[in-house]
């Protein structure tokens, strides 16, 4: 059973968003990590790049497949998790601890389109 954390926002493409003020911390969920299998490469944007809700900002590559990362919100990248460059497997160890990018969000209302933990759990159940 994949881990889902209360208080985070979730997208249908299995990214999570942790909100700290105007800052959004984005990663892939435990469900996504399990489905992908061993992650071997994470393609991340650069700091100061703009991301747009619903569009691709990078990719996660596993031994099974390469999968686009879709941003749950719009904004500007303020930090990328550089430790994933050398150790992408951290995502498999703990997907919530090992976030991918931090963005300064430009439109807080976009959060309304995302799922909460309960809705996401039900969504994952449906996928089976």
């Amino acid at each position: 059973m994949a881990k889902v954390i209360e208080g985070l926002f979730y997208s249908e493409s299995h990214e999570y968003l942790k909100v700290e003020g105007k800052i959004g911390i984005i990663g892939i969920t435990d469900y996504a990590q399990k489905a992908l299998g061993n992650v071997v490469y994470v393609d991340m944007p650069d700091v100061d790049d703009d991301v747009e809700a619903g569009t691709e900002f990078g990719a996660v590559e596993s031994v099974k497949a390469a999968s686009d990362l879709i941003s749950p919100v719009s904004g500007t990248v303020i930090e990328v998790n550089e430790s994933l460059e050398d150790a992408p497997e951290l995502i498999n160890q703990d997907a919530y601890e090992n976030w991918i990018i931090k963005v300064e969000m430009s439109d807080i209302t976009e959060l309304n389109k995302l799922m909460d933990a309960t809705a996401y759990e039900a969504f994952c159940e449906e996928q089976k």
Partner: protein
Amino acid sequence: MNNRLYGNLIFELSKEGRRGYSLPRNHVGNYEIPASMRRTKDAELPACDELTVVRHYTNLSNNNFGVDTGFYPLGSCTMKYNPKINEEMASLPKFQNLHPLQPDNTVLGVKALVLFLEQALCTLTGLAHFTFKPYAGAHGELTGLMTIDNYHRSRGDMARKKVIVPDSAHGTNPASAAVCGLEVVEVKSMSDGTVDVDDLKRIVAEQGDEIAAMMMTNPNTLGLFEKNIPEIAELIHNCGGLMYYDGANLNPMLGVCRPGDMGFDVMHINLHKTFSTPHGGGGPGAGPVGVREGLQEFFPFVSPYNGNFCVMMRACAYILSLGAEQIKNVGPLATLNANYIKESLKDVYELPIDGLCCHEFVFDGLKDKSTGVTTMDVAKRLLDYGYHAPTIYFPLLFHESLMIEPTENESKETLDSFIAVMRKIAEEAKTHPDEVKSAPHNTPIGRVDDVLAAKHPIVTYRAMKNDEMKD
């Protein structure tokens, strides 16, 4: 195999001063190579005697698995048997020693053969013209999309820069569109795996003026025939776009129906799949592109040469040895074989979309998932029993995809033994799960570390030496 003596790299077997080669007679005379083009130091080639070289490569080839060795049900790849007559024809010295820049009037026989192949492909696909320049399927996709782009530009219709691709499509489709400078719009699949026509209607209503083309594979990636194809073609044509047929799954259609009759305007054919020329390991392939009458003037310049001619010869040999009547059996037999396997295994493997398939189908892993045995484990265990693994973890629509394509060539006995082994593995997953999870056990190399291979690939001898020095 003798791993101890011959499992080494040829570079490791090298001993200075050994020689095992003889050069062919010089047919072209002696020419001075300009100093600027000469190497400054010797190439680092291995030095071995002939016997060592023969044993080395013969032992390596014994470790290989090919369609000549055993059943190779690699879904989506159409690993059909390559009849030996194809090789005989392609090795005729008068064809083999041609030069790509030879004057036209010295290769009239070759041109006649290409023309024959073009006519045969037109007859089989319902299209009017083919270009043979593309070297493989993805190159064909790019050539086809460039043809479509040229066509729209020629009419001054510069806004058509979007290509509709189903979410179940092969990854090459969006990749080719991107390389061609076109934007991909994804259309959803319905629960039965076919294109969601309502979603397509929405896309056409919103962005119809910008649609350059729709790319489709029919039957689709799940081996299912797109029943709504006339309606889809009409929707795209009415909005001003063209229909592109990805020939990846042409095999089951052979002799049954034709992309041209389904409303497709442009297509590529993987000669190396449907027309039985060798493939795997990167080629040589051939991806000729066919078009409806009038579109041939928009073929782009993608190569100064005329494609992989020896591959084209093999395709000609295949078509001619089957003949117009026998070739009609290819599609139906491929379809029958796939359905026979599917129906014989669906009680132990999860079949997400039930019903008739075409040349291939997809299981979503074992039916009983409680054992923890995954699709990867089943694939590895098949190697122990002497079968090539099916395609796994593709398509991405399911988590445990196991994609099986037997092709038309296999006898009922082969299919029955494969089915028996697949059932045996399903049983082992319950009784000896650890044996399946640690498979393969009977191969020269056990379970490879694919994470390490992906993260830290060492593909040259020099890189291997450097790596050893670091340790």
